[in-house]
């Protein structure tokens, strides 16, 4: 009867090879080619032009600003992520589901809206605008605005990485430490932290990549003041809009290298410590 319908093995093999070829061509065309184009376009006029383009004063200022913004926002979100994960994975309380939803909220908000909300708070016409103006404090179109928008965008990364892991690990070891007389911080540094270190590193890695690469949110609060409030992604945009394509792609290569480095470390962590990282939920970026 229907057994006759079974395909012979050779057609099955051809089917598999075709399917794999379609998938691989999609990955190459869709992911590898855009990556390649960045480097080729940057080096179009030779290595010398490329290097001098990166060495320009505004480029160096943008690199410094990007590092500064990440150096402030990532540690703040690490502290929050650990505290939130401790709370969510170790205690039951009313409103827990709601709190979890609020932690994830920045992932489902458009980056432009993430910047906009701070303009509405601290901009000239915002809630605190006149007070800030009277006291000569600048948040919007200045570095604090860039930091705030970046914190908002990258807030969920560490918490999201830690919560499922700590939930699956359970609290037996921590309870044992407490019963044996460890103080709260002693338990945290000797038991909790070593148990979550690789997941924490993983979260920091993703958080940092997003913090350095964020464009939409910082573009709204930046004001695009060259050398003062332009991070690397914003410098890419400004150069591109000024038709300095080689210059735009030159900065873009640095960001692409950061992305490749992030992917390499991430993959390494997944291979070596997959048990200690937990099932990685794809971080919405």
């Amino acid at each position, binding site marked *: 009867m*229907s057994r006759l*319908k079974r395909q012979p093995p050779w057609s099955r093999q051809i089917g598999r090879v075709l*399917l*794999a070829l*379609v*998938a*691989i061509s*999609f*990955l190459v065309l*869709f992911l*590898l080619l*855009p990556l390649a*184009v*960045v480097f080729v*376009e940057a080096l179009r006029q030779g290595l010398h032009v490329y290097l001098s383009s990166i060495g320009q004063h505004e480029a160096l200022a943008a690199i410094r600003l990007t590092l500064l913004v990440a150096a402030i926002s990532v540690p703040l979100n690490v502290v*929050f992520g650990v*505290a*939130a994960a*401790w*709370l969510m994975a*170790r205690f039951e*309380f009313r409103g827990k589901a709601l*709190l979890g939803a*609020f*932690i994830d*909220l*920045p992932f*489902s*908000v*458009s*980056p432009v*809206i993430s910047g*906009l*909300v701070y303009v*509405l708070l601290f*901009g000239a*016409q*915002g809630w605190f605008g006149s007070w800030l103006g009277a006291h000569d404090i600048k948040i919007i179109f200045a570095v604090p605005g860039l930091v*705030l928008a970046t914190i*908002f965008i990258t807030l969920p990364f560490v918490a999201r990485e830690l919560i499922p892991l700590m939930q699956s690990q359970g609290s037996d070891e921590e*309870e044992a430490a*407490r019963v044996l007389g460890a103080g709260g911080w002693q*338990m945290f540094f000797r038991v909790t932290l070593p148990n979550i270190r690789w997941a924490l590193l993983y979260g920091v890695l993703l958080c940092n990549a997003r913090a*350095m*690469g964020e*464009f939409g949110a910082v*573009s709204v609060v930046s004001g695009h003041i060259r050398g003062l409030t332009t991070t690397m*992604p914003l410098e890419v945009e400004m150069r591109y809009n000024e038709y300095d*394509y080689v210059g*735009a*792609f030159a900065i*873009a290569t640095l*960001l*692409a290298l950061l*992305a*490749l480095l992030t992917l390499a470390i*991430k993959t390494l962590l997944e291979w070596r410590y997959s048990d200690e990282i937990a*099932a990685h939920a*794809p971080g*919405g970026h």
Partner: protein
Amino acid sequence: MRRRILPGFGLSLGYALAYLGLIVLLPLAALAWKASGIGIGGMLHLLSSPRTLAALRLSFAGAMLAAVINAGFGLLVAWVLVRYRFPGRRLFDALVDLPFALPTAVAGIALTALYAPNGWLGRWLTSWGIQIAYAPPGVILAMVFVGFPFVVRTLQPVLASLDRDVEEAAESLGASHLQTFFRVILPVLVPTLLTGFALALARAVGEYGSVIFIAGNIPMRSEIAPLLIVEKLEEFDYAGAAALGMVMLLASFILLILISRLQRWSGRWAEQLQ
């Protein structure tokens, strides 16, 4: 019981609430407050503007289409990565996350360099009469790019844990491969596929950086809603920007709630099949 043994409940709760309050809730409250400032009349005026409607339609319909494309290709790529063994598989697997790691501005200018009329691929496509950059297809292409990893990454663990006995049973009972796929495998995957779809959709609706370079931003044609918010801000129309932002937020939440409904329903359906 745990609460008594483990310390830090009050500290972590207080800290998390204060941090979330300052960073997320207070700013969003400012958005809602500023948006309500324009009143019902102002909202109707905003929503009846053809340019606003065109931008919202492009952002939402484009994101839907991009998420559908991602569901298809994501399923294919996840299937090949999980089921087949070929040289370079792990490299390709790691590469799937590239759109997560690559800053959106970089993705934007790279895609534009590829698909612009004088670009690497664009010059061929133009000679066949296909325009991608500076037109709606460019917007959708960028949306597919940023949403691509979501479907693959949500599907992979589920595909890896599928019980192959069921497939073998189906085939030994005479089902063809296509029948096995559509009747046995796909129904189980639908809830997960919807999760990936929802994530890719949410990402694409709000996407800005990778889209604005390739879109060309022609009003009524290839202008996305987030860009319209930025333009309103640049004209110091704070209330209009806030209102449009609020509309986008509410619309995406409604969409995500509908998808999670659909997901629950398809989950029950998948259980019934087994």
